[in-house]
Structure formats: structure tokens, C-alpha cells
């Protein structure tokens, strides 16, 4: 084991365990400071309508209503390059929950009372709610290689299936919250729960119509993100900044859990149609049609779609390929970043298709997969290269050694007629590391190290600690290179007023990309170290020489410099009387490169894997015929507890990446991506016959019962 992998106590462990960390909702106005005003949002109650008027009750002194008319700059929230989402609605509302305005005042119960008395007059318009009926693409990709048309025309047979996945809600412990405070020097100080302080600054500057130097953004201690605090905080921060500007006072808005579950951005529901051409028992072509439900505004759907498209064929290389991918507008809450970022949906489709193709050919599911695994030097989906070794064959062997896959798979393949029936399934997945395409290079992200005269070193970067350990692993790298104790290196929560823009906390990039900048900077600082002096070293990203530059328009080249890989297996037991499924064991082998802290990485692997199993098995959220999400509480939106997967085992296979610190790659997202496909395969085997096709997530008890009874009816059994 690399010495850097040795686990340490996380820097934020003590304050969080002791309850001393200050979250955005914990700030109180001390002494004679100005009171913090409460802002609460007026959310649209219809999916699509023209807003004719908003009737306000009489507002007591000190209370105010804020809406689009109060926005001094652009009324649209800048998110990377997209800016279609209004701060407060324009003439129409496009989804239930869209912000129409905000009531602001000193007493939160009074604010709630006022909010409850507001009457909004709508002229209803026809909403688009069904992804199958959606036609307006906010982003579309069409690409491929070889001659898939010819391959399909010449095929002996074609397998075509449809795959559907549902919402997933991030369910972070701390709901969305932001606060804006006008400062004495005229600047606006904006702070709250977020992953990307610099993205929030971009948005607020554009919304206030001011200069970058007029706004600084601090990431407060953040109680979990999982992608849910990547883009959404730019909206909430813009709203509180507008309100604070108008009130000339600090304004804070913290979502309650119901609001958060129903109106914050979620994982894209998807509908994929995959086709496979078979000739002489071999796959000759694959055609992927990917549709993501973008919701009412684009937000980051374009980027999520790009990653889905670039991951379309999973871990396989086929002679001919066609991919069509579209993110489509519906009048529902916008969907956005969530751990995996478009990957889980297409990996589910591809892995299920491989299972079913193997079944059709009478082949073993894993042996069938092995024939098509990508290898070092193979082209990627986007005709880039897999530049580095692909360790999947070894990882499959590790997985088998850890869970006895083949033995169990053979045992469970025998007929089972009792109440409880078992199955085991495997899935293979990849996750491209870092931002898609040339974004890292184009935006030129950077970091600085500041050495104080007393020898302490501070990391000045923008990546957010959201539980994944950034505040610990960044200093660890620097301390390691400088040969000084970890206590001498600190990394505070980023404030855009004093740190470099090292880019967003997303795409599993923080450790691999930013960590490497820190390592290089630390080496330079070591070389020029002068005792007793204040010193600074700055380092910027440069694209590695091997990268085949990505052409975004042609969607061709290296979408990612390298990949993380996973092989996971799930063993499940289905209760044929109730449709309930128990996960007997879940084992994952993950290649995320060198762990920069073993405990932190294992924590990520276990958490992500469990989150993926929740996505597969129980996390069900839907909107009704009016576009409203009704299960907006944790009694109705269930996520797994520790009791649900008592035997959860994660193993690491290390394939070092030369351009990541000590060989580290992206880790945060990988463990989630393949979990659902493995779960579905396990349940499908437990159901018994080869006829079953579990192609929809989550797999509910009712889905299982329908499959069981379909079988019994077709076998002529009594169905009591």
C-alpha cells in the first residue's frame, strides 16, 4: 500500500462529531448586529400557466414581497453556459414549485402566514408531463462509428428492449439553504450549503448586474451534496441576493424537507431503447436511443446528457455503434446533477441488454460480456482511446473470489419453488473521470499554496468538503510532499474572495485533477522553501499530452482522460408471497486508482454502492397527472438504512493513473453507477425462468408480483 493511503482522522471529524460546525441555518445575529431576515418562496402550484396576477395581503411594516421586478441584472440564473432558469418566474410558470416570488421579514411564522394568504391567478396552459410525449430537446447528440445500418440489415436476429428509470432524490441530511448579507463596503456576501462557490458567484454577479469584485461567496459547512448542491444553490443564492439587495439587510432562505423533496433538482428519469444486432452468435452492432427527462429548464441537463451519451455502450467495444441522445423538456421540476451524472441510466440499459442477449443465446452472462470488454488501446464510444489498462477481467476474478459468484449463480439457476427464491447478478461499469471533453483545459482552473512565516501552509482552492474528505485529502497531499506534519497544512471552506477558482466540486474531479495540481505545487514549494518567509505557489491545469482533443460539435475524441471501473455483484432473496426482496449480500470491486486515504475511499465506496442499491430497490418518486410530486416526506420516500444491506463489502483494485496524485483517479461516483443493474439481474434470476425482463427502476414489490403471477398464469396455475 502506498503510504499516502494510510488513513488519518478527518480534519472536520471533531467539530462535526461535537456539533460545533456552523451550518447556514445556525447563524444568529450576535449582539447589536442586524437581524437576519427570513425569506420564504412562493412556489407555483400548477405545472404550466400564465401568471395573471399575484394578490398580496396587506404587509406589516418590515415585511416585503420580492419578485422578478426586483432583479437588478439578468433574471436568469447562469449555470456554466445555460441560463434559461428564471430567478423568479417570467410571464409563465413551467413547473410546480417554480419560484414566483419571495416573502421576506423578521419573523418566520409571520412570513409563513403572509405566504399562505397570497392568491395567485393563473391562466392554465397545457403541460407536457409524459417523457414519451416530450418533443422539445434542450440538447441532442447523434454519433457513432462503423456502419450500424448495414450490420442491422445483415443480422441473423435483433434484440430490442426498452429501459425506464425513475427519479432519485439526493436526500442529503441538510436541506438547501443560502444567505446573503450586504456588507458595509457595498459588497454582497453570499454563503450557504453548496458544492461550487465560484458557480454561485457567476450566477449572483449576473443577477445583480454587478462586478465580480462586488460579490464574494463562501461555502458554509455543508451537510451532504451528491450533486444536488452543484447547480441548485446558484438559484437559491440568486434569490436571497436579490432580496438582500432590496431589503438592504441579511436574508436567509432554508428549504424545509417537504419543499426540498418536491422542488429541488433530482436525477433524470430516463427512457432508453437499445437494439443489438447478432450474427453467427456475435454482436455486430448496437444502437442506443437515450432520452432523459430534463424537466422544465435545462440547468445542467446538457452536461448530464453528454456524459450519458459518452457512456452509452458501457464497458464494451462493438464493431458498429450508433448513439442518439436527447434531453427533453417536460413541465416538471428540473433534473440535474446526481452522483453518476447520466451514467447509472445508460449502464442499467446496457448491462440489462447484455444479460438478456446472453439469455437469448443460451450463453453465460459473464462469459458473454468478457468477449466484448474494452481493452487498453481500444477506441471509446466517441472514438477516443482507452489509453490505460482496463482491469475488468482481474476485477471479475476478485469479485468471484470474494462472493463465490459462479457457485451461487449455478445453484440459483436450478428450479426454485419455495416461498423464498434466490438469485445473484453481476454488473460491470465505468465512469469517465473529470469534466467531459475539454472543459478542464478551456476553463484553466488553478490553485495556490500559501506558506505563512511560521511554516504553516494553507491550501487556497474552491473545492467543497461535502463529506467526501476534501478538507483532509488536499492537506494530506501537500503535507506528504513537503514532509511536514498534517497539522501544519490547512484547508478552510472556500470563499471566492480569497481562494483560486479550482473548478466545481463535481465529476469525481476534485482529488484527481485538483489534488494533482496541489501535489505539483507542493513539490515546487518544497524546492523553494525559505524558513520564516511568506511564500505562494500557484499551479494551473494543463491537459496531458496523450489526450486526443475532444471536438464537442462532432462529439469525437477523448471525452475523459481515463476511467474508473467497477464490477459488483448482488445476491437477493425474493419472497414470492409478498414480492419483497431482501439483499443477502452486495460485493463491489472498484478501481478508483490509488486511495489517498483508505478509510475515506472505502466510505465513499460503501455509501455510493448503498445509494445505488436504494435507487434500484426502494427509492420511488413520481409525479401525478397534474405534475405534482406527492411523496415529499421521508416516510414516503424511502432510502436504505444500514439494516437493509447488512453484508456490504467493497474491495479496491488499484490501476494507477500517471496524471493523478500518486495514481489516484475519480472515486466519488463510481460505486453508484453499476449497482442497479446488478440488483435487477439478481432479482431476475430469483424469479426463475428466462422469460422475465426487469427493465424498469426502481423494481417495486408490485413489479415483482406482476412478474410472478404472469408466469403462474401462463403456466396455468391457480393465482390465489
Amino acid at each position, binding site marked *: 500500500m502506498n503510504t499516502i493511503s494510510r488513513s488519518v482522522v478527518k480534519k472536520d471529524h471533531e467539530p462535526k462529531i461535537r456539533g460545533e460546525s456552523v451550518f447556514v441555518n445556525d447563524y444568529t445575529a450576535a449582539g447589536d448586529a442586524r437581524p437576519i431576515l427570513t425569506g420564504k418562496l412562493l412556489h407555483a402550484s400548477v405545472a404550466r400557466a400564465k401568471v395573471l396576477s399575484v394578490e398580496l395581503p396587506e404587509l406589516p411594516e418590515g415585511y416585503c414581497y420580492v419578485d422578478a421586478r426586483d432583479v437588478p441584472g439578468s433574471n436568469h440564473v447562469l449555470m456554466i453556459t445555460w441560463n434559461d432558469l428564471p430567478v423568479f418566474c417570467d410571464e409563465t410558470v413551467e413547473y410546480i414549485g417554480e419560484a414566483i416570488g419571495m416573502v421576506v421579514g423578521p419573523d418566520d411564522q409571520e412570513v409563513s402566514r403572509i405566504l399562505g394568504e397570497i392568491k395567485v391567478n393563473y391562466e392554465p396552459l397545457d403541460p407536457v408531463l409524459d417523457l414519451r410525449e416530450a418533443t422539445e430537446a434542450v440538447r441532442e447528440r447523434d454519433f457513432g462509428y462503423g456502419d450500424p445500418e448495414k450490420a442491422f440489415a445483415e443480422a441473423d436476429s435483433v434484440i430490442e428492449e426498452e429501459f425506464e428509470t425513475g427519479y432519485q432524490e439526493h436526500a442529503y441530511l441538510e436541506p438547501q439553504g443560502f444567505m446573503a448579507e450586504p456588507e458595509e463596503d457595498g459588497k454582497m456576501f453570499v454563503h450557504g450549503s453548496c458544492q461550487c462557490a465560484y458557480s454561485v458567484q457567476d450566477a449572483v454577479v449576473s443577477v445583480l448586474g454587478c462586478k465580480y469584485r462586488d460579490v464574494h461567496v463562501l461555502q458554509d459547512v455543508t451537510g451532504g451534496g451528491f450533486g444536488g448542491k452543484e447547480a441548485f444553490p446558484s438559484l437559491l443564492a440568486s434569490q436571497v441576493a436579490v432580496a438582500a439587495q432590496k431589503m438592504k439587510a441579511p436574508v436567509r432562505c432554508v428549504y424545509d424537507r417537504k419543499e426540498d423533496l418536491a422542488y429541488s433538482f433530482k436525477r433524470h428519469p430516463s427512457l432508453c431503447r437499445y437494439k443489438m444486432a447478432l450474427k453467427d452468435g456475435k454482436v455486430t452492432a448496437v444502437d442506443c436511443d437515450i432520452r432523459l427527462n430534463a424537466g422544465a429548464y435545462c440547468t445542467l441537463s446538457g452536461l448530464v446528457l453528454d456524459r450519458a451519451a459518452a457512456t452509452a455502450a458501457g464497458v464494451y467495444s462493438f464493431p458498429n455503434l450508433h448513439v442518439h441522445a436527447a434531453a427533453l423538456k417536460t413541465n416538471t421540476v428540473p433534473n440535474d446533477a446526481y452522483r453518476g451524472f447520466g451514467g447509472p441510466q445508460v449502464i442499467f440499459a446496457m448491462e440489462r441488454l447484455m444479460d438478456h442477449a446472453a439469455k437469448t443465446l443460451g450463453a453465460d452472462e459473464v462469459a458473454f460480456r468478457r468477449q466484448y470488454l474494452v481493452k487498453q488501446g481500444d477506441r471509446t464510444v466517441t472514438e477516443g482511446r482507452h489509453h490505460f489498462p482496463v482491469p475488468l477481467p482481474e476485477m471479475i476474478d476478485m469479485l468471484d473470489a470474494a462472493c463465490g459468484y459462479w457457485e451461487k449463480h449455478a445453484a440459483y439457476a436450478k428450479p426454485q419453488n419455495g416461498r423464498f427464491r434466490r438469485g445473484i447478478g453481476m454488473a460491470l461499469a465505468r465512469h469517465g473521470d473529470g469534466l467531459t471533453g475539454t472543459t478542464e483545459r478551456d476553463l484553466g482552473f488553478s490553485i495556490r499554496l500559501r506558506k505563512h512565516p511560521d511554516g504553516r501552509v494553507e491550501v487556497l482552492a474552491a473545492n467543497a468538503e461535502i463529506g467526501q474528505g476534501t478538507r483532509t485529502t488536499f492537506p494530506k497531499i501537500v503535507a506528504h510532499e513537503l514532509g511536514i506534519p498534517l497539522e501544519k497544512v490547512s484547508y478552510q471552506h472556500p470563499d471566492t474572495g480569497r481562494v483560486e477558482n479550482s473548478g466545481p466540486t463535481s465529476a469525481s474531479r476534485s482529488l484527481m485533477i485538483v489534488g494533482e495540481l496541489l501535489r505539483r505545487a507542493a513539490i515546487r514549494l518544497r524546492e523553494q522553501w525559505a524558513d520564516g518567509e511568506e511564500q505562494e505557489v500557484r499551479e494551473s491545469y494543463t491537459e496531458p499530452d496523450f489526450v486526443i482533443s475532444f471536438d464537442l460539435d462532432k462529439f469525437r475524441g477523448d471525452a475523459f482522460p481515463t476511467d474508473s471501473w467497477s464490477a459488483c455483484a448482488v445476491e437477493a432473496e425474493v419472497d414470492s*408471497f*409478498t414480492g*419483497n426482496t*431482501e439483499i443477502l449480500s452486495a460485493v463491489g470491486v472498484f478501481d478508483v486508482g490509488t486511495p489517498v486515504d483508505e478509510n475515506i475511499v472505502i466510505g465513499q465506496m460503501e455509501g455510493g454502492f448503498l445509494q445505488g442499491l436504494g435507487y434500484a430497490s426502494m427509492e420511488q418518486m413520481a409525479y401525478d397527472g397534474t405534475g405534482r410530486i406527492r411523496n415529499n416526506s421521508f416516510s414516503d420516500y424511502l432510502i436504505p*438504512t*444500514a439494516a*437493509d444491506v447488512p453484508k456490504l463489502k467493497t474491495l479496491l483494485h488499484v490501476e494507477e493513473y500517471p496524471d493523478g496524485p500518486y495514481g489516484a483517479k475519480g472515486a466519488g461516483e463510481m460505486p453508484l453507477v453499476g449497482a442497479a443493474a446488478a440488483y435487477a439481474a439478481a432479482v431476475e434470476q430469483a424469479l426463475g425462468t428466462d422469460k422475465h425482463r426487469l427493465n424498469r427502476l426502481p423494481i417495486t414489490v408490485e413489479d415483482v*408480483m406482476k412478474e410472478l403471477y404472469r408466469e403462474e398464469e401462463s403456466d396455468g396455475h391457480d393465482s*390465489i
Partner: protein
Amino acid sequence: MKAIPESLREALALRADTNLVPYAGGTDLMVRGSSNAEYLFLGRVPELRRITADGETVRIGAAVTFTEALESDAVPALLKEAVSRIAAPAIRNAGTFGGNLSNGSTKADSAVALLAADARVRLQSLRGERILAIDEFCLAKGKRDLGEDELVTEILLPAGGLENYSFEKVGGRKALAISRVSFAGVFCADEGRITKAAAAFGAVSDSFLRFRELEARLIGKTIEEARELKPAYLKAYAEKLELKDGRVSAEYRRTVCLNLLKAFLEKFGV
């Protein structure tokens, strides 16, 4: 106002004189979080915190927590199994039988087991006492036969005859899950003849369900006779089970209820 009586008499007097909301564990009220309500805390009333048993009856005080019941030798295994499936340890450390029965839910896991066990509820007031069967007390969702001056003080369980039982809970996950279907069954036979075949269903309708008139069809029958009657018996249940759509569909609930009833009968040879 808060009131913390230290004796049953004091508690009943407060109940008679005030509109306080009685509670002991507070696990459900805490979620509702009503800022205006005023409470009568029963957790320090010794009479409500005891588990006692004589040869005939096991008495569980209304303010006994689920954890205390799980640790008691006097509590029958059927009830322990039901209680062990409630929520999670922290909630079981606080939650009580009185609250689980009284809060108006038709998904209470203890209630469905108590219903199958022919348990009774003791209600007391300054005026006197009433003893009701579980389904006489739990009338419907949000509706309990409880006078404004009455408190649930004890659950009374038969001390014997609960050895042959089934308990099943279908929830959305393995802990902290509200039941989507719950089932409890108690079976007794004497000299080869069935003396009891109680089947109770929870979380599937606006009230807990038990059909004693259908159960009566099996009473006095031999196992062989019961087996012959089984198809008609299950069909009769299928017709009786008028269920509600909720977190899962009524159709799903019906299928599961019948499967669990069938499994219960099969477990005891029928």
C-alpha cells in the same frame, strides 16, 4: 401547560379536568410538531409502567416501552415479534403500547398482533373502567372508542394459547418502515380439532380486519376437514377483503393478504 402526574389517580384527575394530550413516548407527536398543543406526560405513572402476569392474564401497562416488552419474560413471543419490527431501536426505546394503539393509525404493528391474540384494552377514568376488545377500541382510522376523561391503562393478553402463531410485516425497507401489509395469525387445536384460527390484517384498510364469522367455519374441524374446506375458505376471504389503495395498490394488498393467510394455515398443517 405541562402536567407530569406521579400516580394513576392524579393522571385520571388531570385527564378529567383538562384538554391535555396524553402521551408517554412522544415518538409520533414529535413528528406532528404541533406548537399549540399541551401535554399530559404519563411516563412517570407507576401503574402504567408495569408488566405483570398471573396464570390467566398478562398485563402490559400502557406506558411500557417496546424495548421493555422485548426484554420481559412475561410477554408472549407473538407480540415480541410484532414489536421487534416497529421502527428502529431508538424509537422502540421510547414508543409505548398505549400510544401505538391510541394514535389512530391502522398500521400499528402491535395492534394487529394483539387483535389476533384476542387481547383486550383496559380503559380507566375517575368514573370507573371499561374493558374492550382491540377491534372494539380501534374503530377506524383516526377513530378510537375513548372517552374524553378516559386513559388507556393496560393491555390484557391471555397467558396461554398463543404459542402457534404467524406474524408478517411487509414494509418498504427493513427498519423505520410503515407497514404496507401486516398479518398476525394464532392457531390452536385440541385433541385433533381446531379450537382457534384467528387471522388479523393491518395496514390494508381503514380499520384492522378480523373476520370471526369466517374463522368459525374451521372451529371444531379436524385438520383434514379444514384442508378440504380451505379453497372455499380462502375464496370467502378473497370476497371479504375490500382493501384500499395507498402506498401500494389494493390489488397488491389483497394478493399478499391471501398469500399470508394461506401460508399461516399451511404452517399448521391446513
